[in-house]
């Protein structure tokens, strides 16, 4: 992902495989209009990984589902642009999107059982996924391809495993099978939505390694959605921090993890205990709870939970901060605090808490 050095607005890398511009996704509901995603812009090149981080309800999954065209158009209002390999899919017909889905873009989820059908053998399902986009392939070719994929994702005895049902697989194995199915058509873009959240750390480590190896091999673009900052540090090249359906900070993984500028990013980092450092130091949590996306606070949506909301007079309560340069090239943030204030606060309040230590 690249962002501009211009202080005024985010620009998109024109060469990137995925380009998302000012994406807005809204759901009209009985309780009111849910502004699940409210103006998100980013891009991902092939071979690169964009990490999207934020607490639950910040719009991460809604963003990723839009890229796959999975929202029901009758119940969703989508605007902006999602360009995949040069084709804008916003407003595209379902049949056209279906042609992209699974071939150019694939997705893996937290729960592999939502992608694997319980009644069919794993090999058959992967072969089917292949045949959808390779109608000329014979049954036998498709099955060979399925077994090959199971092997590639590190499943021992792939031939035998292909003939088993999903419930005969362990959690980690199921996750691998789902990845095999997602990658069977060599997608250029893979979206992984909390793919390891339900797994034990040793299995998570294997899956993350697998994704990195496959990325090297296929040169795919990856979007890794997670609430785990450790996972972000390990796999992301660039990071997008979301709050209340909007990006609040973006930049390289170095910039976000080592030189974070936004009070929300600070809050996340200061909330997570470290494997090193002083275990006696208290965490510095963000107070309160994430907002409802039906009724966001005016001004900066983070203001009820932000310790520094009063620092610039009334600005945090009256004016919504737009993304602008945080100083370094490629590092953007949406906050009214001045650079001097951010520097002072970070040194005084944040640098010694949680993993920010």
């Amino acid at each position: 992902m690249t962002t501009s050095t211009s202080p005024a607005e985010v620009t998109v890398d024109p060469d990137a495989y995925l380009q998302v511009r000012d994406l807005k996704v809204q759901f009209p509901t009985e309780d009111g209009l849910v502004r699940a995603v409210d103006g998100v812009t980013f891009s991902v090149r092939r071979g690169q990984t964009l990490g999207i981080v934020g607490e639950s309800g910040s719009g991460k999954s809604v963003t990723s589902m839009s890229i796959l065209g999975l929202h029901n158009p009758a119940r969703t209002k989508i605007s902006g642009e999602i360009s995949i390999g040069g084709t804008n899919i916003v407003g595209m017909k379902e049949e056209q999107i279906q042609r992209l889905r699974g071939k150019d873009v694939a997705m893996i989820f937290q729960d592999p059982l939502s992608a694997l059908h319980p009644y069919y053998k794993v090999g058959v399902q992967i072969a089917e996924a292949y045949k959808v986009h390779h109608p000329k392939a014979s049954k036998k070719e498709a099955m060979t391809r399925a077994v090959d994929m199971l092997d590639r994702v590190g499943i021992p005895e792939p031939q035998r495993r292909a003939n088993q049902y999903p419930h005969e697989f362990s959690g980690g194995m199921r996750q691998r099978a789902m990845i095999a199915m997602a990658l069977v058509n060599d997608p250029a873009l893979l979206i992984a939505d909390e793919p390891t959240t339900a797994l034990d750390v040793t299995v998570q480590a294997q899956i993350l390694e697998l994704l990195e190896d496959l990325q090297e091999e296929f040169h795919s673009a990856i979007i890794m959605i997670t609430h785990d900052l450790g996972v972000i540090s390990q796999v992301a090249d660039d990071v997008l921090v979301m709050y209340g359906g909007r990006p609040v900070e973006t930049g390289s993984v170095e910039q976000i993890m080592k030189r974070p500028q936004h009070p929300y990013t600070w809050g996340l980092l200061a909330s997570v205990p470290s494997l090193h450092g002083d275990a006696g130091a208290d965490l510095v949590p963000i107070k309160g709870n994430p907002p409802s996306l039906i009724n966001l606070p005016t001004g900066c949506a983070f203001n009820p939970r932000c310790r520094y909301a009063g620092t610039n007079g009334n600005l945090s309560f009256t004016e919504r901060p737009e993304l602008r340069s945080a100083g370094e090239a490629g590092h953007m943030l949406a906050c009214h605090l001045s650079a001097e204030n951010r520097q002072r606060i970070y040194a005084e309040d944040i640098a010694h808490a949680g993993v920010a230590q």
Partner: protein
Amino acid sequence: MTDLADSAASGGTLTTPVSEPLLKVEGLTKHYPVRGGFFGTKQFVRAVENVSFDVRPGESLGLVGESGCGKTTTGRMLVRLLESTSGKITFQGEDITHAKGTRLRNLRQDIQIIFQDPYSSLNPRHTVGKIVAMPLQVNGITPPGGVKKRVQELLDTVGLNPEHYNRYPHEFSGGQRQRIGIARALALQPKLIVADEPVSALDVSIQAQVINLLRRLQKDLGLSFVFIAHDLAVVRHFCERIAVMYRGEMVEIGTREEIYERPSHPYTQALLSAVPDVTKIGRTKRIKPEGDVR
């Protein structure tokens, strides 16, 4: 450590001498019977096998390990929600392994449990006031100033608005519901709390709020904890000593420094090296455990 225990003793809530463990677990074992084989022969899941540890007054002992290694089973045996297959549990010098009747009821005042899932552990049809008051009423305890006053104090202690006494669980967020569970556990002034993944279901900022609350309670009330979690960083932050479980067995127990700085068991080493380290950017080397692919 010592001053925690001292302050608790001077507060008059603690009867055990500081040198004695509050809780002593020896050779604790649980085999779940399961049906298996062609003729429905009895087979067993060896969920917990020969586990031994102590918990000292005011101490927080962490229990870590991957899913299915027997953490919850161990915790439930400690609070006597599950009968052990064999082994011995001693609390304040008394054998409680098979405690029944009045003795068990008294024990339930001293040892409380909080659960991972703040949603399913609270009765949705009861108000928060009723939920937190329940342990008092079951045990026929009328605190000075009355039940309502005590419940409101408890709500205040855990950072909830005492005015919300008449609200229902669904009106609270996940983090607030976990606080309700904690208030309920505190109602009988327990000495030991078994916390089974108390923050695992919460978002990181809320998780940090609840961890800070538990740390404050431990300090202010001289509470002891058996703190069960799979998140190694959270356990390091909360616990002075840590026991590592693997496939029902305890493979290593030691101080925070011993476990995290100089782990001696290969499984502990593998587990720690698998945790993605927030402070390190890029791929990290990890130690692969035996029989790696799972």
